[in-house]
C-alpha cells in the first residue's frame, strides 16, 4: 500500500518535470521570436553596425543548433537533452554551459532558502500554536500584529528597507553579494563567518515576512482543532492541559500546516528570487536577473526548468514524509 503511494507521488513528480520541460519548450515558440537571431541583432546593434549577412549568419547558427528541424523533432531532442541534464550553452557567456552556471549558483539559494524556510516555518508554527493557547504569556499578543502586518509585504520590499537601515545608515552589515570581494574562498572560519554576515539581511527579509503567515495559519487551525469533540473529551477525562495542548491540538493542527508548506514553496521561491536581486546574492535569483538583462534565453530556460524540478522534488519529499505525520493518508485513495 505504502509503496503504491510513493510510486504515485513519484509519478506526479515526473509529470511536473515533463510539464516544466514542455512549458519551457513551447511557450517561447508561441511568440515566434528566434533567440539566436534576436541575440545576434542585439549584439549587432550594440556594435552600432548591422552586418548585411546577419540573416545568413542566423540561418547557419539555426542549423547548428538544430532550430531548422520540424517542431516535433526539436521537442524530442530537447526532452532527451534535458533528461540527461544537458541544458545547452549560455548565449551571453559562451562557452560556459547553463548547467554549470546553475550548479555554481544553486548551493547559495538552497542554503539561504532552506534555512530561512525551515526556521520561519518552525518558529511561526510554534508561535501560532501558543497564540491559540489560553495559557500563553501576555507579551505574545503584542508581537503578533507587527508580524502579521509584515506578512502582507513582499520579501524584497522589506529587503530594500533593511538594506537602507542596516547597510547604509548604520553600516553594520554588508550591502551586497554573498561574500566579500577578494575573500579567499575555502572552508575556513573567516570565510564562513563572512558568508554568514552577508546572509543576515537577505535571510531576515524572508524570515520576518514569512513567520507571521505561518503563525496566522497555525492559529486558525488551532482554534478549529480546540473546538473538536475529542478535545472536550480529553478535558473531561482530566488530562493535563499541557498534554491536551501538545498531543491533541498541535498534533492535529500541524497536518494542514504541512500541506500548506508544500503549497507555499513555489511562492516562497518566487519571492526569494527578488530578494537575491536586491542584495546581489549570488544564487539562482540573481543569475536569473542577469540572464534577463543579457537576454540569455537558454540560461533563463535552464534556470526555470531546474527550479521547477527542484521544487517538484521538495514537494515529493514532503509528500513521502507526510504519511509518517498522518498515518491515515496512505490508506486514503489519493
Amino acid at each position, binding site marked *: 500500500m505504502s509503496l503504491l503511494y510513493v510510486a504515485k507521488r513519484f509519478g506526479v513528480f515526473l509529470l*511536473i518535470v515533463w510539464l516544466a520541460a514542455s512549458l519551457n519548450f513551447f511557450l*517561447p515558440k*508561441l511568440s515566434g521570436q528566434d533567440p539566436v537571431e534576436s541575440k545576434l541583432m542585439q549584439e549587432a546593434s550594440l556594435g552600432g553596425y548591422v552586418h548585411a549577412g546577419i540573416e545568413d549568419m542566423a540561418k547557419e547558427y539555426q542549423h547548428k543548433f538544430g532550430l531548422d528541424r520540424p517542431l516535433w523533432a526539436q521537442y524530442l531532442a530537447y526532452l532527451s537533452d534535458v533528461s540527461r541534464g544537458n541544458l545547452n550553452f549560455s548565449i551571453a557567456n559562451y562557452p560556459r554551459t547553463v548547467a554549470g552556471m546553475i550548479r555554481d549558483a544553486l548551493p547559495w539559494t538552497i542554503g539561504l532558502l532552506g534555512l530561512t524556510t525551515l526556521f520561519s516555518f518552525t518558529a511561526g508554527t510554534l508561535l501560532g500554536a501558543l497564540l491559540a493557547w489560553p495559557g500563553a504569556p501576555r507579551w505574545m499578543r503584542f508581537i503578533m500584529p507587527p508580524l*502579521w502586518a509584515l506578512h502582507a*509585504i513582499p520579501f524584497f520590499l522589506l529587503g530594500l528597507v533593511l538594506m537602507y537601515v542596516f547597510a547604509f545608515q548604520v553600516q553594520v552589515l554588508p550591502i551586497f553579494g554573498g561574500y566579500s570581494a577578494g575573500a579567499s574562498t575555502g572552508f575556513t572560519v573567516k570565510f564562513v563567518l563572512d558568508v554568514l554576515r552577508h546572509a543576515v539581511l537577505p535571510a531576515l527579509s524572508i524570515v520576518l515576512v514569512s513567520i507571521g503567515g505561518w503563525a496566522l495559519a497555525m492559529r486558525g487551525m488551532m*482554534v478549529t482543532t480546540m473546538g473538536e469533540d475529542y478535545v472536550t473529551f480529553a478535558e473531561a477525562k482530566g488530562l493535563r492541559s499541557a498534554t491536551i495542548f501538545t498531543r491533541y491540538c498541535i498534533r492535529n493542527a500541524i497536518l494542514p500546516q504541512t500541506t500548506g508548506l508544500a503549497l507555499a514553496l513555489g511562492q516562497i*521561491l*518566487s519571492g526569494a528570487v527578488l530578494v537575491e536581486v536586491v542584495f546581489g546574492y549570488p544564487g539562482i535569483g540573481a543569475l*536569473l536577473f542577469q540572464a534577463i538583462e543579457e537576454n540569455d534565453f537558454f540560461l533563463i530556460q535552464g534556470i526555470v526548468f531546474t527550479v521547477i524540478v527542484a*521544487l517538484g522534488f521538495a514537494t515529493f519529499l514532503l509528500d513521502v514524509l507526510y504519511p509518517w505525520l498522518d498515518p491515515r493518508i496512505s490508506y486514503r485513495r489519493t
Partner: protein
Amino acid sequence: MLGYIRRNASLLIGVTLLGILAIFMIVGAFTIDTDNAQPLSAPALQPPSWDYPFGTDRQGRDLLAVMVAGTPLTLWVGFVAGIIGVGVGSVLAFTAAYYGGIADTVIRSIADIGLTIPGLLVLIIIAVSLKGSLTVNQMAIVVASLAWLNPTRTIRSQVLTLRERGYVEIARLNGMSGPEIILRELMPNLLPYLSATLVASISGAILAAVGLEFLGLGPVDSPTLGMTLYWVQFNAAIINGWWWWWTAPLVVILMVFLGLFFLTVGLDEIANPRLRRSA
C-alpha cells in the same frame, strides 16, 4: 453596521488605507500633470521640495507624477488579473466540487500541480518570450494566466463543505438543475468567502505584477510602481543615499498590500464567524 465596523478593526484599517490611496489617485489625476512622469520633465535627483513634494529621479521624472500615473496602472493589472482569476477559478471550483467525478479529479490535480510550480518563473518565461511588446493590459492577461490556481483550490474546498447541506438537498429534490443550484443556492452562501478570495487574489496578482516589473519585464514605457523600483535598483539609489526615490513607491506599495491584507482579514471574519471568538 457602524457598530460592527468598529468591532471589525481589520476591515476598518483596510478600507481606510485603500480609501486614502483612492483619494490620492483621484485628486492626483485632476491636479497633477502626469506628463511629468516621463523622463527629462524635471531637474534630476531633487530631494523633496515645495515644487517636487516627492522629489525627482535621476532621469528627471517628477516622482509625484510617477506615483499618480503609476499607482492606477499597477492596481489595474492586479484588478483585471484578480477578477479573471477568481472568475475562472469559481467556474472550475463549482464544477469540480458540485459534480465531482472525473471533472473534479482533473481540475483538482491541475490546480495542485500548478500550485507547486513557482508562478513568477512561469510568468518570467512568458514575459521574456513576449519581450518588447508587452502593454499594461497584456501584462494583466499574463498575470491572470496563473491567477486562477489558488482560487480554484480554496473555493472548491468551501463548496465541498456546502454540497451536502440540507437546503441543497431540498433544492435538488425540488428539481432544480445543477447550474441553478450553484447560482441560487451555493453562490449566495459563499459570497462573503468569494469576496475575501477576490481581494486575496487581487493582492497576489499585484505582487506578481510588481515582481515582474521589478525585474524589468513589465511594460517598459509605463511608469508603474514596480518599474520605478527597477530604476531604483538599476541606479543603486539606496547606496547613493537618494532615499526619496524609493520612499514614494515603497510607501504606496506598502499601503496597497497592507490595505488589501487587512481587507481580506476583515472579510474573512465576516465569512467565517468562528474566527471572531478568538479575537
